[in-house]
Every structure is written in C-alpha cells, then in structure tokens.
C-alpha cells in the first residue's frame, strides 16, 4: 500500500504525507484536536465556519468561491466533529492534480497556500473577526442545528447520545449549543482562534502526486511564530451501567425509531477494541450480519437495523426504523441476537466472512484519496500507524473466544424511542 511519511514540524504539530501518482486529485487537510468542552465547542465550530468563508487574500465568500472555481472547481471544506472526548476541527482543500490543468497551472501549490491562508491569515478587523462574516456564519450554524431535527434518524441518534452521555463530556454536541453560538462575538472568536492555534494538537495530512514540500514549509513557518502549548487529550471510558435509561418521545411521523446505546467496555488504544469492532460487524455491520439476517430478513420487522462501534468512546449504537406497534418486538429481537453472541452462538462462517468483508473494505480504501486519508486519520489517536497488511493480520488473529468476550462486555445503557403519535 501507499506509505506515509510523518514529520514533526512544531510542538504537537505533525505533517503526514502520502505520495501517490494514481489519482487525478490531491488533498491537503489540517486536523486540529482540542478537548471537547461545553465552554468552547460552540465557539470553535463557529470559528471553523468563519475561517472557511474568507481570508485576507480573498476577503469575502464570493471572492474565495470564485478563486476555487477558477482552480478547476477545487473544494475548501470545514468540519467540526468528535473523536472521543475531543473536538476535531478539520479544514481541508482538494482539487485537480497539476497534470490535468488545461493551461499548465499549479493547482496543488495554490491550494496549499490558500489553506494556510484561511487558517493563519484570516479576514480580521483589528483583534476581531469581521462582524458581517460572523453573523452570516452564525445564522448558518444555527440552521444546521435546527436541520438535524428534519432527519429523524439523525435526530433520534443524537437524542440517544445526549441521554446516554448526559453526565459526560461526550454528551456535548459537535457544535455545542445554540445559546453559546448566539453569545459568541467577533472578539471572542479572535480569542478562540488564538487559543486553537496555540493549544490544539495538529495533524496535517497530504495525499497527492506533487511534492508536499511547499505545504510543509508554509505550515512550519506559520507555526514558528506561535507560542505552542498543546493540551493533552484523553477520553473517559465508562465500563459499567447501574441502571438502564429509557426515554420515549412522541412526534407525528409514519415510522418509529428505536436507538439503543451500549457500553462496550473498551476503546482504542486498548487491544480489546479490535475484537469489539469485529464483534459489532458480526452483529450488525454487513448484509449477512445477525441483525440483517434475523431481524430484517427473517422477521421482516425493518428496512435497516445496524450496529456501529465508536472505537474512541467505547460505545455501540444499534438503530432501526420500525412500525410503532413492533418496537418492543424489535428490541427483544435485537437483545436475542446479542444474548446469542454472549453465549457463543457464532458460526465459523460468520466470523470468517465478516473478517473477509472488513479486509475487503480495508484494501479498497487504498484506492481512493479519501480512503487513504481516512485510513491514517482514523489511527491518529492510536499507538502509531498500521499498514493495511498489519491491520489485516491483527484482525485475522482474533479468536472466537475474544469475540464472545467482547460481546459479554456489552452492557445496555440507554434505550431511546421516537414514537409516532
């Protein structure tokens, strides 16, 4: 597979690059990790939006968009997300490789400069961001929060996590709260920007054909003038459940949603996390998983019933859409499959075919720019990078006993039902 080169360019700042000539595009991203907290999450998310809409060189949204369009429809994206108890602000630029430019332009170089520009040379007015830009971004971020209610699957999953992790840092949403977004000011965002550049742990990823030297140089220079004080990261893993939390909400919908949250009892970088991940795939990660075959195909209860393992936080979430009158039957059906796994009712075929499917996905990821980036980015909080071959070997070595042990660690924590009125 493609190999990655990793260099530390400042205190807590790493530049990772993969040189690959197979693709027609390149991608450069900066991932800034900070501890998730109710006090700063909203400002960080709002700041990310403000940074991505203009910069000193292209001081308004239209100017920046037109520049990207002229670079053969290049993209500049921003994302605020969570990885365990961390908030990750990702700013990325991607575009056509230089070989395909009609007029011989260097797209990669221009995009590197542009990405550095939006991060380090934003559109400022003294020691504050430009008020009009902040207002636009604030309105849009509040829209994003409201729009999560539009999609009932997203909403139900969000509610389950909120209830399950109400007393934990992880219960803070990736955008924080509407109240805190409303309270932010152009000045407070400036302070948040300085804090982010100073305290975040930064992972820069580059995937492309042209040499990443220019980008590495620009980032190195930019971080040189910043008094770095990166904050250590950690995630709270809850390993026991005292009492199952249950909540039902009624809304006028045609389909009810059932979302169940479990404590998996392990998270990365613990080695048990690997068996937990495989266990979760056997349970509900493929079209031959236990939930798909039994709850969907045999009992015809639902269209989707999937299990996901959050390896950073150590929780498993199972979600499904179902007829209101069948919610209980569905919950029982799901618990039955989990009980089976705890009791060792897992066939060799289930184990081997799931391993093959997972390895197929591992290997396939090496054939896209986004896949390569995700492969390495997903290991940033682990103990060093593994190649696909190494990860596949570790997966193949997982025994049935380890899978059963992983299932036995599962403890139901929260059941959220969105019921049709």
């Amino acid at each position, binding site marked *: 597979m493609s190999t990655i080169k990793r260099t530390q360019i400042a205190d807590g700042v790493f530049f990772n690059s993969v040189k690959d*000539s*197979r*693709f*027609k*595009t390149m991608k450069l991203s900066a991932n800034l990790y900070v501890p998730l907290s109710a006090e700063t999450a909203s400002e960080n998310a709002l700041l990310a939006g403000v940074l991505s809409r203009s910069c000193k060189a292209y001081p308004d*949204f*239209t100017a920046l*968009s*037109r520049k*990207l*369009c*002229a*670079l*053969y*429809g290049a993209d500049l994206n921003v994302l605020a997300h969570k990885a365990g108890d961390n908030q990750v602000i990702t700013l990325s630029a991607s*575009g*056509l490789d230089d*070989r*395909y430019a*009609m007029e011989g332009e260097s797209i990669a170089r221009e995009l590197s400069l542009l990405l550095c520009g939006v991060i380090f040379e934003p559109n400022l007015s003294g020691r504050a961001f430009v008020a009009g830009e902040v207002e636009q971004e604030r309105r*849009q971020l509040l*829209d*994003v929060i*409201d*729009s999560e*209610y*539009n*999609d*009932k*699957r997203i909403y139900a999953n969000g509610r389950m996590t909120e209830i399950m992790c109400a007393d934990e840092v992880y219960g803070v949403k990736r955008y924080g709260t509407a109240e805190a977004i409303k309270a932010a000011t152009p000045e407070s965002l400036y302070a948040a920007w300085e804090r982010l550049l100073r305290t975040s742990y930064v992972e820069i990823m580059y995937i492309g054909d042209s040499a990443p030297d220019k980008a590495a140089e620009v980032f190195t220079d930019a971080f040189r003038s910043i008094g770095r004080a990166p904050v250590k990261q950690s995630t709270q893993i809850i390993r026991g459940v005292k009492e199952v939390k249950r909540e039902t909400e009624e*809304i*006028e*919908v*045609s*389909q009810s949603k059932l979302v169940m949250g479990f404590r998996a009892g392990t998270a990365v970088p613990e080695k048990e996390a690997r068996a937990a991940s495989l266990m979760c795939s056997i349970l509900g990660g*493929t*079209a*031959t998983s236990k939930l*798909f075959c039994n709850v*969907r*195909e045999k009992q*015809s209860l*639902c*269209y*989707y019933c999937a299990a996901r393992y959050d390896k950073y936080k150590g929780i498993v979430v199972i979600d499904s*859409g*179902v*007829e209101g009158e069948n919610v209980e039957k569905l919950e029982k059906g799901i618990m039955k499959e989990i009980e089976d796994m705890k009791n060792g009712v897992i066939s060799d*075929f289930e184990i081997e*075919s799931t391993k*093959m*499917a997972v390895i*197929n*996905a591992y*290997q*396939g990821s*090496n*054939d*896209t*720019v986004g896949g390569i980036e995700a492969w390495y980015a997903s290991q940033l909080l682990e103990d060093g990078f593994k190649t696909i071959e190494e990860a596949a070997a570790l997966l193949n070595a997982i025994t049935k006993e380890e899978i059963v042990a992983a299932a036995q660690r599962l403890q139901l924590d929260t059941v959220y039902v969105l019921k049709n009125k």
Partner: protein
Amino acid sequence: MNMTEIKSDRAGDSYYKIRHSSGLTVYVYPKKGYRSAYAIIGTNYGSVNNCFSLDDGEKITVPDGIAHYLEHKLFESAEGDAFTRYAETGASANAYTSFEKTCYLFSCTDRFEESLEILLDFVGDPYFTPETVAKEQGIIGQEIKMYDDSPDWRVMFNMLEKMYHNHPVKIDIAGTVESIAQITAEKLYDCYNTFYNLNNMALCVAGNVTAEQVLAICDKMLKPCEKHEIHSYFEEEPYEIVEPYVEQTFPVMMPMFNLGFKEKAEHLDEKKLAQTDILLSMLASPTSRLYRDLMDANLINSSFGYELFEGPGYRAVIFGGESRAPRQAAEMIKQYIAKVKAEQPDREDFEISKKAIYGDSISALNSVSSIANIVLSHHFSGHEPFTYLEAVAATTYEDICVRLSEMLDVTNCTLSVIKSAEAEV
C-alpha cells in the same frame, strides 16, 4: 463480438466497449495500480416503466413500485440469497432502483472472477414464490415509511406531482404500502421477462481487471439472448406544469423548498449537456451573483443546490435547499434568471464555471465506483463520458447564450415547500 477502445488524452485513460455475443453491452475500464474492482450491471428499466408490451403482445400495466420490489427479490434464489454467496468471496454488494434504471453491483479486492460469476448468475436467475414475495412486504413497507418521513424526499415528490400531469416520474420509486400489496410472483415474472433481457442491459467493470478476464466470465455465464421489441407507454405530457405552488406541513424545524423548472424533454447530446452544466454552475453555484444575493438576504444556507433532473420523457432543473422564507427565495431565483436572460450572462462567470465543470468531470474518474457508475449512466442516457469531457472543453460563451434562451422558462415552474405547522412562509 466487437470490441472498441475509447481513449481520452485529457483524462489520461481509456476503456473498452464490447457487444457481447449474448446481447449484453460490456464496458471494461482498467485502472493501473488499483487493487480493487467494481462491477455494476443495469437494466434499462426503472420505476417509470409501469406500462409496457413485449413484441406484439398485450399492453400490461403493473403496480407502482414493482421495479424496486423486483430488485429486492432478485437477490433470492432457491438455494439462498446472493449476499450469503458474496460473503464467501468478501465482496461488498448492493443494488438500487431509480426512475429509469435498476442496477446491481459489488466491489472487491480479491476473488473478482467468482464475485462476477455470482452477479451474472443471480441477476439471470429469478426466483419468485408467493412466500418470498409476501416476506418482503414488511421490509419494503418500512423503507417506504422511512421515505415518507424524509422532508427532502417529500419536497421533491410534491413538486413532481404538481409539475407532471401524466408522466410516472411523479410516482414514488418504491410505490406505496397499498400499491406494493398488489404485487404477485406472476407480475414480477412479467416485468423480469420483459426488461431483464441482456439486449436491454449493460455491464460495467472498472479497476484491477482486464477486458479478457471480464469476457471470459461473460462467455462462461451468459447464453445468447433473443432480442425482443420492448415498448414502454407514456401518456402524452403537456409542456405546462400542473400547479405553480404546493406546500405540506411536517415535523421540521428548518423549512425547505424545491423550485423546479419544467423543461422540454427532447434528447440532449453531449454538447448540449455540457453547455447546460456550465450554465447552471454560472447561474447558481456558490460563485454566482444569485447565490450571494440569496445569502446576503438570509434566504438560503449552504444546503442550497441545483440539479439537472432528467430521464425518458422528462427533464427539469431543480433549485432547492433549506430556507426560512422559501417563497422569497424562489422569487429571487426567478427574477435573477429573467434578468440574466434579458441582459446576457457574464463572460468571466462563463470562464470560471467552464473550468470548474471540466475539473469536476476529470476528478469524477478517480475512484472505481464513480467511474463504473458514470459509464453506465452515460450508456443508458445515450452519452459517452470522454465525448462529454471534450464537449466541456469546446464550449464557447456564444453556445451558453443560445442554450440559456432555450431553457429555464420562469413562467413554467413549480415551487414546493415543506414547513412546520407553526411557521409562516
């Protein structure tokens, strides 16, 4: 068998088109240095083909949603389901039904030949019984209800219902709980035997494969298929829309809208298609004056987008997204289009949008899944991807002006709005 190589210096790629002796059209797009392969087989049959005849046979009308139902059921055979067979090769499989086609696909990094055999085998081997058909009612019923709760889906179909008088594109792809209750094994066979004829289908494989490898499996698995005359009936569709406005209340916090311009449905060649894509980018992408005005007036957010929506007998341009004031947003879009039509578009807008569409068309040839899907879609719409790329590069400002005069009739559009019970829009 005749095999043609199709090359593009601009894309730096080439692929093969083969008329296989069985009647199937086969495309193979090898990608050097890739580990994975992606295969997709499709039939020129989707949700809109609900009234048809075969050769000189009688006209058959089938329940809404049957093409999608058939897609679900084709995975089953007397011996078990195809997912279990794929589980033995490690391939990841899926399928989908759209308005105009039904496709079955897989991706894999090992044991490609075996997986392709499974694909060609189960797609060629229907097995429908009253019991297996009945079992799917609950699953698809829940799929339909999931879409009933989706405001994105509803806002589009509400618009299509008020845009098309007769064309079946206004009917939900999956049908309704009531319409699928009328589906029987016999009706599924009627549809299968009509549309799943290899002469009406195409296979496209991209990635770590050679044409020889793919053809060897086709030779082994496919028998020559007699060509039949398939006729799909569509009632005459007037040029005019049905109604200019429709709204529905929904449990949402962000209201949303679709503004659809009904277009003439004649076939567009690659040149016209390229011109249309560049033109729409000029008018409504984030670089445009319109986008800026809508944003500054707080009428849209970054969910705003547009789409050229087309298929057999229908074409529309749809603008849409979330908005706290959909009527005002729609009004501003219409006024802007009318103004550009009266005053001619901006030349610089043209230059940068042309580059963006060119860049997007090349970038899309990056991953095996995207390549295979593009080649297959182009096959069914009568286009060829590299010809399209050349057409983008050759498009002139004058072409755009002519194209603009032919489309986006501001007196022939429908606005669909989804709002919460409390909100005034």
